[in-house]
C-alpha cells in the first residue's frame, strides 16, 4: 500500500533535487562563460571560473544523491518498481542523464564545461515530469507483471541512450555547419573533419564500418580532450569565428518555437509553453555561445553513431519483450496498437539511420537528419500517443 509519508518525502526530495540541479546548471554555465582558448588551442577556465565550476560539480553531485533518494523512496512508498508512469520515468531519465553527464562527459571525456547542457536537459525532463505528476500508487492488473521490469526498463534504457545520440547528432549538425562555413570563408580546400567528410571522401568498400570517420585526419587530431582547433598559433581565433558563422537569431528562435508548439500540443498550457519556450531560447543562445567549445563535428557524429548503435539492440529487445508481454496480458503479441505502431515506426527509422550510414549517397548530413527524425518519432510515440491517442497503452499518464 502506498506509504503516505514516504511518498511525501519522495516528492520533497524531488523538488530539492530540481532546485539543486538548477543551481548547479547556473554554476556550470558560469564556468562555460569563463572558459577561454589558450594559445595551444585547449580550453582552460579562469581562476574564478574554475572555482565556481568546482562548486557546481559539488552541488550537482549532492543534487544527484538527493534525487536518487527521491526515486528510491518513491519505489518503497509505492511498493513496486519506480518506473510505472510518465512522472517516474521522467525522473529516472534525468537521474541517468546527470550520472552520464558527470561521469562520462566530465570525467571520462573531459568536457566539464559542457555539463551545464546536460543539467538543463535533466531539469527539462523533471519539469515535464511535474506536469504529468501522478500520486505514488499501485498499477492496474494489466501492468502487474514481472514483464514491466523487463519491457519498461529496456525501453527506458534505450530511450535514455538515444537521447544522448540525438543531442550528439544535433550538435554535430550545428558544428558541421559552423566548420564548413568557416572553411568556406577562409577559402581553404576543406579535407576531413566534418560529418560530410565520408560523403566527400572516397567510396568505402561494401561492408565497411560506417564509422570510419577518423581517417584522413591530421595526426594527433583527436589527441586531447579539449577543443581542437586543428591549426596553430597564427589562427587560434578561428574557433570563435565558428560562432560568428552561425546566426545568433535562429539559435534561440528555433528551439523556442519548437518547444512552445510541443508543450502547447501535448499539455495545452499556454503559461507553461511560454516559460518552456523562453528556457529553450536561453538554452539556444547558450548553445550558440558554446559552438566553438564543442568537440569536432566528426567526433560528435561518431559519438552519435555509437550511442544509437548501442541503443538500437536494446530498443529491439524492448519491443520483443513488449510483444511477449502483450501475448500474455492481452492475448496477442502484436495488434498495431498506437503505441506498438509508434515504437515500430521509431525502430524502422533508427534501422534506416544505421543503414543510411553505410549507404552511398546517404552518409553524412543526410543520415544525421534521419536520426533527428527518428528521435522526433520517439518523442511522439512517448508523449503524444500516451496522452492523446486512445489505445491499450493509454492509462492516462502511465507508460
Amino acid at each position, binding site marked *: 500500500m502506498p506509504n503516505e509519508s514516504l511518498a511525501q518525502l519522495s516528492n520533497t526530495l524531488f523538488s530539492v533535487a530540481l532546485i539543486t540541479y538548477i543551481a548547479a546548471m547556473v554554476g556550470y554555465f558560469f564556468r562555460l562563460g569563463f572558459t577561454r582558448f589558450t594559445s595551444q588551442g585547449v580550453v582552460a577556465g579562469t581562476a574564478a571560473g574554475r572555482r565556481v565550476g568546482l562548486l557546481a560539480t559539488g552541488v550537482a553531485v549532492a543534487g544527484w544523491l538527493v534525487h536518487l533518494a527521491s526515486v528510491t523512496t518513491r519505489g518503497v512508498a509505492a511498493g513496486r518498481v519506480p518506473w510505472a508512469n510518465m512522472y517516474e520515468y521522467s525522473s529516472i531519465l534525468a537521474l541517468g542523464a546527470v550520472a552520464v553527464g558527470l561521469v562520462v562527459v566530465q570525467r571520462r571525456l573531459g568536457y566539464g564545461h559542457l555539463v551545464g547542457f546536460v543539467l538543463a536537459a535533466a531539469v527539462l525532463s523533471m519539469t515535464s515530469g511535474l506536469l504529468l505528476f501522478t500520486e505514488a500508487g499501485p498499477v492496474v492488473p494489466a501492468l502487474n507483471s514481472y514483464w514491466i521490469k523487463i519491457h519498461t526498463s529496456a525501453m527506458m534504457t534505450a530511450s535514455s541512450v538515444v537521447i544522448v545520440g540525438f543531442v550528439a547528432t544535433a550538435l554535430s549538425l550545428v558544428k558541421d555547419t559552423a566548420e564548413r562555413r568557416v572553411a568556406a570563408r577562409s577559402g581553404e580546400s576543406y579535407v576531413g573533419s566534418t560529418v560530410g567528410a565520408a560523403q566527400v571522401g572516397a567510396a568505402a568498400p561494401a561492408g565497411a564500418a560506417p564509422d570510419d570517420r577518423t581517417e584522413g585526419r591530421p595526426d594527433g587530431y583527436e589527441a586531447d580532450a579539449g577543443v581542437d582547433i586543428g591549426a596553430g598559433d597564427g589562427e587560434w581565433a578561428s574557433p570563435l569565428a565558428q560562432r560568428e558563422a552561425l546566426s545568433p537569431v535562429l539559435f534561440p528562435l528555433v528551439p523556442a518555437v519548437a518547444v512552445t508548439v510541443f508543450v502547447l500540443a501535448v499539455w495545452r498550457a499556454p503559461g507553461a509553453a511560454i516559460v518552456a519556450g523562453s528556457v529553450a531560447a536561453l538554452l539556444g543562445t547558450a548553445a550558440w555561445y558554446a559552438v566553438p567549445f564543442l568537440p569536432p563535428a566528426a567526433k560528435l557524429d561518431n559519438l552519435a553513431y555509437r550511442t544509437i548503435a548501442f541503443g538500437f539492440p536494446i530498443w529491439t529487445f524492448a519491443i520483443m519483450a513488449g510483444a511477449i508481454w502483450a501475448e500474455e*496480458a492481452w492475448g496477442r503479441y502484436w495488434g498495431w496498437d498506437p503505441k506498438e*505502431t509508434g515504437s515500430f*515506426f521509431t525502430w524502422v527509422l533508427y534501422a534506416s539511420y544505421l543503414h543510411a550510414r553505410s549507404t552511398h549517397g546517404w552518409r553524412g548530413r543526410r543520415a544525421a537528419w534521419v536520426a533527428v527524425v527518428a528521435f522526433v518519432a520517439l518523442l511522439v510515440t512517448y508523449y503524444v500517443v500516451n496522452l492523446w491517442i486512445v489505445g491499450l497503452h493509454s492509462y492516462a499518464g502511465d507508460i
Partner: protein
Amino acid sequence: MTGTVSPPKAPAPLPSGSRLPDIPGPLETLRIAWRRLRRMATALQLLFALAAASVVATVIPQEPVTAQSVEQWRSGVTGPGAGVARVLDELGLFDVFGSWWFAALTVGLVVSLTGCLLPRWRAFVRVARRPPAAGRNLERLSASTVLSCPLEPEQALRAAERVLGRRRFRRRRVGSQVAAERGHWREGGSLVFHTAFYLLLLGAVIGKVFGFAGSISLAEGGAFADTRIAYDAAQPGREFDLGDHRGFVARLDDFDVSYFPDFTPRDFRSTVTISEDGQRVRTADIRVNHPLRYRGMTLYQIGFGMAPHVVVRAGDQVLLDERVLLAPGGGSNLWAGTAKVKVRDPDSQIALDLALATDARLGDDGQPVLGPDPRPRNPVLVSSLYFGDLGLERPVPAADFDRGDGPVETAMLRPGKTAKLAQGSLTVEFRDLGYWSGLQVTHAPGRSILLAGAALLLVGLIPSLYSYRRRIWVEATPDGAGSRVTVAGVALQRKATFTDEFDAVVSALRDAVGSRPPPRPEAGSQPYSQPEPAPSPERSP
C-alpha cells in the same frame, strides 16, 4: 548494394537527331527492376514508406483496433467528415496493415531483402571458408612493430598462435608467417539479423492462417464447449476448420475481483475447470498476465461484469430463469443490461431493463444513495418491465427492443427479494448476485517460430554492430641465436580503437616470446603503436 544501373548500350553510336530512346525489352526491364530492387537505396525508400504507413495508422483510427472510432469517422460524427472518410476507406486507410498496398510494400521489402541477401550470403560463405591470406610488406603497414626474441622462429610462431588464439583470431601458418583474422561475424551477424525476418514473416503468416481467436462471456457456474458455435465472436484463420476445435468443456467455477482502497482494480481471477468427455482434467486460475494454456489453446482473462440471477414467473409458470450478464453502466459501481423473455404471442412479449448499483445504502429519506464502492456489498437491482409488441422477433442487438412508451412498471430489488409487477400477474425475483467473466480463447501456432526469429534477430544484431574485422600477421625470421619477429595488423572497421588492440596483442606477444621491450626512441619503428600520450610542445604549431 550493387552499383548504379547502366542502361544497355547501343552497339554503335547513332547519328544525332531524331532518335528513339533505348527501350529495354521485357527481359531487360525485369533485370533492371531486379537490380534496382537490390539496391540499398531502394530498401531504404521502402523502409521509409513502411514508416509513413505506420504514421498514417497511428493518426487514423484502425478498424481492427478501434472499430468504434472508425464508425464515427465513417458517419461523420467525428473526424474530417463522411466524404473524406469514404476516400480513406477507398484507399484502405482504416485498415492500413490489412490493405493491399501494405501487402505490396511488404512483398517489395522481402524481394529487396532477398536480392540483397543472396549474393551477400554467397560472398560471406566464400570469405569465411577462405583461410587468412599471407601478408606482404609487413613493415609498411601503419600498425607494425618489430620485436627481437630469444626463441627460435618456430617456437616464436607457436607462441604467436597461442596469443592470437586466445583472442579468438582464426590462424593459418603460411611459410614463416602466422596469418590471423577475426570479425567475420560482423557480416555474418548482419546476414543472420536480416534472414531472421523471413522467420518472423513465416511465423506471422502461420499464426494468421492456422490460428484462431474467439471470445466468450460466462456467468459463474456456466460452461462452454470449444466448438465454433459456442463463441460470442470468433476470428478463425483460413485453415482453422471446425474440426480443429478441441471440443473440451470449460466451466467457470468462480470469479473474483479485488480492489485497492481507492477502488481501482487489483486483480481479476477466474477459476476454470476443464473437462473432456465428462472427465475433469484440470482446474486452474486465469488472471490477467497469467493465461491458462491447454492443448494448444490459450484462455485469457479479458473482461468481467455483474451477473444477477433473475427469475420471472407468470403465476407458477417460469418464463425466465437465468444469470443476466450486465455491462458497465458508467462508473465501476453501475451495471446495466437487458433480459428478454421468449413468448410465442408477439403482442405479449416481455422484456426487462436491468440496472444494478453495487453500493446503494438506504438514505434517511428511504431512497437509496449511491456510493462509489464497486464491490457488491449493498447491491440493488432496478428492473423496468416492458410488455407488449416489443419486436423481439426481429434480429436486433441483444440490448435493443422496441421500448415504445416506456416501462410498464419499475421495481427496486435487493438480493433474495421478489417483486410483483403488472397487478401481480408477473413476479420478478432477484435470487442472488454473481459475476460473469470474459474469456478469450486463442490458438497461435506460429509463436515458437516467431520467438526463434526474434532470438536470431537479436543474436545477429549484436555482432553486426559491435564486431570489427581485424587482420594480424606475425612473421619470424632467424636472427642470430633468436629471431626477429615482425607484427603487423590492419583494421577494416573502426580503426580508431585498433591502435589499443594492436598494442595489447604486441605486449601479450612480447611476454609470450620473452622479448625485452625495445628502447623507447627506436629508430625505424612505429609511430603508430606508441602514440604521444599528451600534446607535446614540439607538436608543429
